[in-house]
């Protein structure tokens, strides 16, 4: 009595990454139980290679089938929608997970415990579904799956007060805002009777056509949803967890949280605003988000200026970066280039932050310190680390030839396209202010003097991360157009209604 039988491929292809991740999860668990003691140490490489393989498979399958409506989710009742946008974001998440695995081999806090990699795989699975979700229920389940794993990863170092505080703060904030998000989603369902995004769009349009009381109700629901999603991307005023979590959690956890979680949340945010909300609602959320973006950028940059701990500084910097990306979401209201700008920016941001955190984890392993002052003379102690950090800081600051320049360029031009020139100007000013603390790190590395100038060795694992991220940033910065074209195509497929 199940409805017409669906060909297996049509049901499997849209969720192929998730199924692969499930198999990887079982593999890692069995490896943790049954393999002999000596080879348990290899779990980080196994998981990393697994993620890389999955990313490659996902990209080849995705490019093959994208645009084909039969294989993009209709086999699953349209509960997921695997368009080029989802393919791009899933690739980012899988890459971030792979590089985090390789980076985590040296972390004393993680100690290569299997539970970390289990949490990482479950988080990646939730995030892959988040960016492709086309249904309110799946949005919430995927969001929770990712969030719970991230709480575990944040509080992973049990004997450290900082890590436990980070995990607890992240969890408490996350649980409350997730409850508020759920209430907003249930209000949307209550107003329309639909949970599927494809049907929600027309239903919400019908609601707002009825007059101002419909609009007011939707605005309230929208605000509630923004609370939940704003927490995930660390927008003011929901940013309070970010500095403490970034400072206290183990470095690989922060690397993953700051890249994949932000990318997945922005993917969800963009999809939500471009498909679900009708055109009449735009004046309500566009202005509000523009104001939030301006405040977020400014606050993040101001507070980052005075930080002495590099992880905390990157925390405030990531708040500011969320502000920049939010400009792209605002631009979504008028031009589809907004979504493309956000996608490009997130791809750049994932590579950049991973590069920075790879260097931080290497320095932490060698000196045990995360204070900026202890990076003095890094160029002499380990030139590769210093160079990758330079590239990462330039990219975050928006300086060519690093990819961050094009990222900010596309964001600001999308804002101007959509009529938000004032926002673009604030963005440029903020980027200039931010350069100060990014360049300070570079100065300390090259000009500062350290007492101990012994050379560091870099493991092959970490070398892979440094090469991939460093080359990736420079490639995206110099030959940006193929990536930009991919992002534009992704954003165009967002709003096409598949049959």
């Amino acid at each position, binding site marked *: *009595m*199940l409805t017409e039988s669906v060909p297996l491929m049509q049901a499997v292809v849209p969720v192929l990454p998730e199924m692969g991740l*499930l198999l990887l999860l*079982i593999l890692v*668990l*069995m490896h*943790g*139980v049954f393999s002999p003691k000596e080879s348990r140490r290899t779990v980080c490489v196994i998981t990393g290679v697994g993620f890389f393989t999955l990313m490659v498979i996902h990209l080849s399958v995705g490019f093959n089938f994208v645009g084909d409506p039969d294989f993009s989710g209709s086999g699953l009742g349209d509960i997921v929608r695997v368009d080029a946008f989802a393919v791009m974001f899933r690739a980012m998440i899988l890459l971030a997970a792979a590089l985090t695995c390789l980076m985590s081999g040296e972390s004393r806090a993680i100690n290569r415990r*299997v539970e970390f990699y289990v949490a990482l795989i479950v988080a990646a699975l939730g995030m892959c579904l988040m960016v492709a979700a086309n249904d309110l229920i799946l949005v919430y389940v995927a969001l929770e799956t990712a969030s719970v794993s991230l709480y575990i990863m944040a509080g992973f170092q049990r004997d450290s007060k900082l890590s436990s505080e980070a995990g607890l703060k992240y969890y408490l904030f996350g649980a409350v805002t997730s409850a508020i998000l759920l209430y907003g989603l249930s209000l949307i369902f209550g107003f329309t009777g639909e949970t599927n995004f494809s049907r929600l769009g027309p239903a919400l349009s019908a609601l707002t056509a009825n007059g101002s009381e419909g609009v007011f109700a939707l605005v309230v629901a929208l605000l509630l949803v923004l609370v939940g999603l704003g927490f995930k991307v660390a927008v003011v005023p929901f940013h309070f967890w970010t500095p403490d979590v970034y400072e206290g959690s183990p470095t690989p956890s922060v690397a993953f949280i700051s890249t994949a979680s932000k990318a997945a949340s922005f993917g969800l945010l963009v999809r939500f605003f471009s498909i679900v909300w009708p055109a009449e609602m735009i004046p309500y959320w566009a202005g509000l988000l523009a104001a939030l973006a301006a405040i977020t950028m400014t606050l993040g940059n101001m507070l980052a200026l005075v930080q002495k701990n590099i992880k905390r500084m990157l925390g405030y910097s990531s708040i500011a970066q969320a502000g920049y990306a939010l400009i792209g979401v605002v631009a979504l209201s008028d031009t589809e280039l907004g979504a493309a700008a956000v996608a490009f920016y997130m791809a750049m941001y994932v590579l950049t932050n991973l590069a920075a955190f790879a260097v931080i984890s290497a320095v932490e392993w060698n000196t045990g310190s995360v204070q900026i002052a202890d990076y003095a003379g890094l160029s002499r102690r380990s030139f590769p680390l210093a160079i990758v950090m330079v590239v990462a800081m330039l990219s975050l600051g928006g300086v060519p030839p690093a990819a961050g320049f094009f990222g900010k360029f596309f964001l600001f031009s999308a804002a101007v396209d959509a009529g938000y020139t004032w926002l673009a100007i604030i963005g440029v000013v903020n980027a200039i202010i931010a350069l100060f603390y990014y360049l300070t790190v570079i100065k300390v590395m090259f000009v500062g003097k350290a007492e101990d100038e012994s050379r560091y060795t870099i493991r092959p694992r970490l070398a892979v991360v440094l090469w991939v991220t460093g080359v990736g940033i420079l490639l995206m910065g110099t030959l940006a157009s193929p990536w930009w074209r991919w992002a534009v195509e992704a954003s165009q497929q967002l709003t096409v209604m598949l049959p």
Partner: protein
Amino acid sequence: MLVQQYLPIAILVLFAIIMALIVVFTSVIFGPHRPTKKKLAPYESGMTPIGPAVRRLPVRFYLVAVLFILFDVEIIFLLPYAVVIRQLGLYGLIATGVFVVILTVGLLYEWKKGGLDWE
């Protein structure tokens, strides 16, 4: 009306409350109340008490409660499946089987790693 089917439950709850109140208040009202210093001291099987009367609960109990919640949620997911088990046939068995197997793998992992040990 559907709700009237719950009338027996409501009566049961009412009787349970009344019974509980009777048991408590009968002993309060009709029991003799002649406290002496020795009678009011904390009871530890008749011997002189060792250590403080109130100690913090060990964390092991918390772990048991967490495990109980997780498997309780698994059970409630299996409840609707149990209602339509014949209708769904082999396909339903496989789909729900995947659900159960995923959780069983986790249980197996924790079992082998000593997460379920009491001591």
